[in-house]
Structure formats: structure tokens, C-alpha cells
């Protein structure tokens, strides 16, 4: 039997009506399990008139109440540490993780049973196998191996596939580059930002990554893996192909991956999730091709059932036919486009950090950057972009600053961007999720009261 290019060929090539039949059956099972084992959910179902028996098709999904992060957080606060959301006794868990956390918010804490933890690796297998990773590969993980779930599942997925796994935790960037070269790693896993950081370090060390052994990069943790300019830069620096993936601690693993055809989007693992795209303001479904917020229902982790969870991720869903790989799983064109709450309003213009990054990355001379919002003279919002341009002479640097400023302005309804050169090495580097936006704006008319958003 020839080797399949799909991890689960039967599911990944199923006609749409069969995918929906499979999802309906799994949804029914999930509602039954959740209703029987999590009174917190059962009460919400009951209020909405939902029961397993009442699920007759995917249209019934919309009768299930949406769940927000705030509700999850409040539930944890009321009944720490996990809230009344566990479907099994704590002592049955074998794994604990928590969300990477955002300033001012409480991390979500999650547990997994033994088969849940295996399932988490299973989801990563769809992505790795789909991008062409095979048992003969040597996979390096530039990952800190802490309580953030990150690439944990990916590590075990590669063991499952049969690869030689190099766990690169607790290492300097220099040591990581050395090990990748010395061990002849063929696959590297990291955030997009850190892939660029390693490339930068390699240059400093005099290492030619593009001539090295790495053939594939698996990116995760930031939307940048699907920003064409960022991805192109990463691929050029490494001389390798890069695939985007995205996951979340709330489900423990990835839910979307880019296949080897690199269609400019990520396939949804539709036999394990139902993904909906809705208007973030009204909650109403949006059609193919329109941007909206993704909602996730997971058939995986049984320990903490997740149904219609509002992710705050912005996506554009398109039919599977947008990719030539033969999968019938739909795609998110451009991966995760940003966060509902990422958008900043600057003098009436919407600014998305991802859109700024896409433009900055068109300038290959720029190593690192930072976006800063501030209030000038206590009266007016301003936006500036600080960039590091190592080795550039005065005239070249001036030209880059001017061109970048023009490009940013043209893409933002003429909004003025102050583009400035930062000292080499002065801007922060990130291993996990990059935080390149700093919002120092104050409430205009106050003596310096910071804005809450």
C-alpha cells in the first residue's frame, strides 16, 4: 500500500455531507457527555432547551449557548482552581497546563486525562504529516517546555510519527542554532518571530542557514505564520518551506494547519472540531469569504468540554476547493488574521498590528520592530514604529524609514506614522508570543490616566 499524504485519509477526503453527518453524531455525543458530567453546562443547556436528543443536525448547534473566556475565568474564580467545568475527577488527570496569559487577565487552567493527552498529539500529527514530515526527519523544538502548552503536543506527535526529536528547551539562541546544525535537524518548530531571531543569530555566528539541513519549519503561536511577507522572509533566511499552524490552550492543541500545497491558508481539522465564523458584534453566522470571529466546538479533550467557545480570533473561511491537496476540510484563508480586541483606533483609523507587520516585513533590512501608541501633548493620539536596521548607512536608512512611513500611511487612510530608527539590539526579542504593540495612550483631558483599551 503506498504511503498516504493524509494522516487520516478517510476523514480528510470525506465528502461535505459525510463530514457534517460525522460532526452531528459527535456533537450529539458531546452534548450527552457534557450534560451528564458537568452540571454547570447542563444548567445552561437546560435554560436554552438543549439536550442530546434534540440535536438532529448542525443547525441545532446554534441553539447551544456560546461560551466566553470571561465566563470561564469567572467560573475559575468562584471555584478555584478549575471552576465547575471538569467532567472527570481531578485525580484522573495526567497533565496540567495554563494559558500564556495576557496582562490583567487570569490564566485559564486546564487538565487532561491520558487519552486526552494522546489526542492532543494526534491533532498535531494531522499538521506535521500533512506538511510532509516523516519518520526519517530530525525535528528540533525551539520551545521552553513550561506550563504553556505550546509545542508540547507537537513534541509527542513527532515521537508518534517516528521522528528523532530534539527538545531545545532551556538553551540560548546560539546554542539552538549550533544544535540544529550539528544534529542536522531537518525540521524546526518555533514561533515565526523566533524563527527570524534564530536566523539573525545564525548570521552573527557566520552560519549559513539556507545552506543547512533544515527543509521545513512548523510555525505556531502568532498570526505571522500566514502573513505572506513574514513567511517569505522566514523561508528565504532558512532556505526552507514554512507552514503555519494555530492552536489554543482551551482545547489543548492545534485546530488548523497548512498542508504541503501551501495554499495561503490553514485547513480546519473538521473531523475533530466544528468551527463557526460569526459577526463578533451580533453573533450571527457570516458566509464564506467574509471576516468574522471563530467559535470552536471540540470533540477532543473530554476532561473540560468546550462548546461554541468564542475565541476572539478573526478569520476568513473559504471552501476546501481553494486548495489543490484533495482534502475536503475547509480553510481559513490567511490563517488567523488577528484578534477581535487587537484592533486599535487611532484618530479614527483602524490599525491592526498584523497589517503593520505585513508592511514592515516587506523591508528585508529591518530586523526587529515595535509599534507604540502614545498621546502627544496630552491631546492627540500618535502612532510610531521603531525599527532596527543593522548595518545600514545613513542614506540607506533614511530611505527605508521614509518608504516605510509612506507605505504604512497609504495602507491606513493617510494616517501619519512616525517611523524611527532604534539602536541595534535595543528592541525586545521574543521566544513565545511576540508583543510588539505598546499602548501608552492616556485619557485625553486627564493628568495621565491610562486608557483601559
Amino acid at each position, binding site marked *: 500500500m503506498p504511503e498516504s499524504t493524509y494522516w*487520516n485519509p*478517510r*476523514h480528510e477526503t470525506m465528502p461535505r455531507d*459525510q463530514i457534517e*453527518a*460525522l460532526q452531528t*453524531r*459527535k456533537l450529539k*455525543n458531546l452534548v450527552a*457527555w457534557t450534560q451528564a458530567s458537568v452540571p454547570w453546562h447542563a444548567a445552561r443547556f437546560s435554560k436554552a432547551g438543549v439536550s442530546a436528543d434534540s440535536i438532529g443536525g448542525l443547525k441545532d448547534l446554534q441553539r447551544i449557548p456560546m461560551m466566553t473566556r470571561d465566563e470561564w475565568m469567572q467560573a475559575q474564580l468562584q471555584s478555584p482552581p478549575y471552576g465547575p467545568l471538569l*467532567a*472527570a*475527577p481531578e485525580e*484522573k488527570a495526567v497533565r496540567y497546563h495554563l494559558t500564556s496569559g495576557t496582562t490583567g487577565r487570569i490564566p485559564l487552567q486546564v487538565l487532561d*486525562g*491520558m*487519552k486526552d*493527552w*494522546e*489526542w492532543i498529539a*494526534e491533532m498535531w500529527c494531522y499538521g506535521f504529516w500533512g506538511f510532509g514530515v516523516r519518520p526519517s526527519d530530525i525535528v528540533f523544538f525551539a520551545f521552553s517546555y513550561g506550563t504553556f502548552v505550546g509545542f508540547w503536543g507537537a513534541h509527542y506527535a513527532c515521537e508518534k510519527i517516528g521522528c528523532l526529536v530534539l527538545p531545545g528547551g532551556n538553551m540560548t539562541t546560539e546554542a539552538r542554532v549550533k544544535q540544529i546544525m550539528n544534529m542536522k535537524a531537518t525540521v524546526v518548530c518555533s514561533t515565526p518571530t523566533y524563527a527570524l531571531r534564530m536566523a539573525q543569530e545564525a548570521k552573527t555566528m557566520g552560519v549559513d542557514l539556507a545552506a543547512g539541513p533544515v527543509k521545513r519549519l512548523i510555525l505556531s503561536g502568532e498570526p505571522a505564520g500566514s502573513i505572506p511577507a513574514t513567511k517569505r522572509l522566514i523561508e528565504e533566511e532558512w532556505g526552507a518551506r514554512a507552514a503555519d499552524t494555530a492552536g489554543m490552550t482551551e482545547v489543548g492543541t492545534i485546530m488548523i494547519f497548512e498542508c504541503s500545497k501551501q495554499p495561503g491558508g490553514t485547513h480546519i481539522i473538521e*473531523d475533530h472540531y466544528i468551527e463557526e465564523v460569526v459577526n463578533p458584534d451580533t453573533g450571527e453566522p457570516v458566509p464564506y469569504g467574509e471576516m468574522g470571529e471563530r467559535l470552536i466546538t471540540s470533540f477532543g479533550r*473530554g*476532561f473540560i468540554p468546550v462548546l461554541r467557545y468564542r475565541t476572539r480570533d478573526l478569520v476568513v473561511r473559504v471552501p476546501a476547493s481553494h486548495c489543490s491537496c484533495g482534502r475536503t476540510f475547509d480553510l481559513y484563508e490567511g490563517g488567523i488574521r488577528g484578534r477581535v480586541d487587537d484592533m486599535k483606533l487611532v484618530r479614527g483609523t483602524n490599525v491592526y498590528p498584523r497589517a503593520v507587520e505585513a508592511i514592515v516585513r516587506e523591508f528585508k533590512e529591518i530586523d526587529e520592530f515595535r509599534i507604540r501608541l502614545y498621546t502627544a501633548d496630552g491631546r492627540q493620539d500618535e502612532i510610531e514604529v521603531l525599527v532596527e536596521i543593522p548595518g545600514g548607512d545613513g542614506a540607506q536608512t533614511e530611505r527605508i524609514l521614509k518608504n516605510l512611513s509612506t507605505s504604512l500611511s497609504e495602507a491606513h487612510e493617510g494616517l501619519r506614522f512616525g517611523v524611527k530608527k532604534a539602536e541595534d539590539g535595543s528592541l525586545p526579542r521574543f521566544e513565545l508570543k511576540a508583543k510588539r504593540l505598546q499602548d501608552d495612550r492616556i485619557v485625553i483631558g486627564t493628568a495621565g490616566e491610562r486608557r483601559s483599551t
Partner: protein
Amino acid sequence: MRNAMGVELTAGEQALVECYQTLVRTLRERDDLPPFARRNGLKAVAALWQVVNGLDLDPGQLYDIGA
């Protein structure tokens, strides 16, 4: 043997399903297993659950036996 979608499973797939079913039954019913046998059995069940789930046989949850 057919799955929940009505698809006939191959002989190889059926063999793995039977292996899973035997393991689950053994772990549920037997209390004479030494720690190494029970815990390795559970690890194997957790892995085989992925097979049975991927073959559309609705394996349900396994927390009662510790997997």
C-alpha cells in the same frame, strides 16, 4: 465490522479495534494486574483510543479506568 458511518473496516483495522476492546475489558474487569501491566495497558489503551476514534466507532470516555 462497520463503523458509525456504515463503512466496512479493513481486516487490519478490525484487528486493532478488537485489540482495543480486549484491553479495555481487561483493564475494567481484572484486579490482578501488577502496576507495570496496568499502567502500560492504560498507555496502550489511550493510544488505541485514537485509532478507534479515527475509525468512527465512537469510543466514548475512559476516565473510569484511568485513561
